[in-house]
């Protein structure tokens, strides 16, 4: 199959820009696994995805993996799923825990960076670090997505190149994982924002 056969009915202005774009995704869990698939479907040229973790049974409640993928590294499972949907998106996957040096090393030439971590500590680390090294690259983060319902409370806060998607208030209650639908809303808003930033870049 040729890419011309695959990519039909695409936006004549935005799609060529998405094809040339590189998007970094830090984390391949509830947010990252869904964001990666959305961006691959839209036709982003290259995704750089990092995560140290493996798929567990409890992840299936909100993460874009299958029963057969339990035990696999999440980045490999994401790559496997994307290859089945869009074989034309280039994937660079890294099985590692990100720190200051790794962030600088892996994501220095992305057009948009997406924070898709689970813990507040990791989210904060990425913002502090990425904003310092790459203050002009759009960084799209998530904060506040626990529970269900209240879709209308999920919003985007922007300051310069930093965007935060979420309600900035819903906290996880003891032992209860985030729930698929609300995680997916935030993931879709992050992906949508990334597509918008890339499409607007040269306009």
């Amino acid at each position, binding site marked *: 199959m040729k890419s011309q056969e695959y990519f039909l009915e695409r936006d004549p202005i935005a799609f060529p820009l998405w094809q040339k774009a590189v998007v970094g995704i830090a*984390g391949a*869990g*509830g*947010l*990252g696994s869904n964001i990666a698939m959305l961006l691959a479907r839209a036709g982003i040229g290259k995704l750089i995805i990092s995560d140290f973790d493996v798929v567990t049974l409890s992840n299936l409640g909100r993460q874009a993996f299958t029963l057969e993928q339990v035990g696999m590294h999440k980045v490999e499972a994401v790559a496997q799923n994307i290859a089945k949907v869009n074989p034309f998106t280039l994937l660079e996957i890294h099985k590692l825990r990100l720190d200051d040096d790794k962030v600088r090393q892996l994501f220095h030439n992305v057009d948009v960076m997406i924070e*898709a*971590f*689970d*813990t*507040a*500590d990791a*989210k*904060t680390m990425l*913002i*502090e670090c990425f*904003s*310092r090294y790459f*203050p002009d690259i759009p960084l799209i*983060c*998530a*904060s*506040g*997505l*626990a529970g269900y319902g209240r879709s209308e409370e999920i919003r985007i*806060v922007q*300051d*310069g190149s*930093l965007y*935060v998607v*979420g309600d*900035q*208030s*819903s*906290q*996880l209650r003891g032992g209860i994982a*985030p729930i698929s639908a609300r*995680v997916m809303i935030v993931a879709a808003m992050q992906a949508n924002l990334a597509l918008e930033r890339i499409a607007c870049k040269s306009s």
Partner: protein
Amino acid sequence: MQKQLTINGHLKPWREGMTVQDALDLMNYTFRMLVVKINGKVVLRQDYASTQIPEGAEVLVIHMISGG
């Protein structure tokens, strides 16, 4: 006239030597994980007590919450 700064869109009184930590205390922001930006620049957590806020600054405080 009282000198001011803006914190998350709210006008607040500013005073000479006011630090990021003072601003967080003023707003009762006690959340464990915050991201603070002053006039568009991120302030690292370890610098909250030593970073002074200029008069008229735009301060953004984002609450970072686990879940993803």
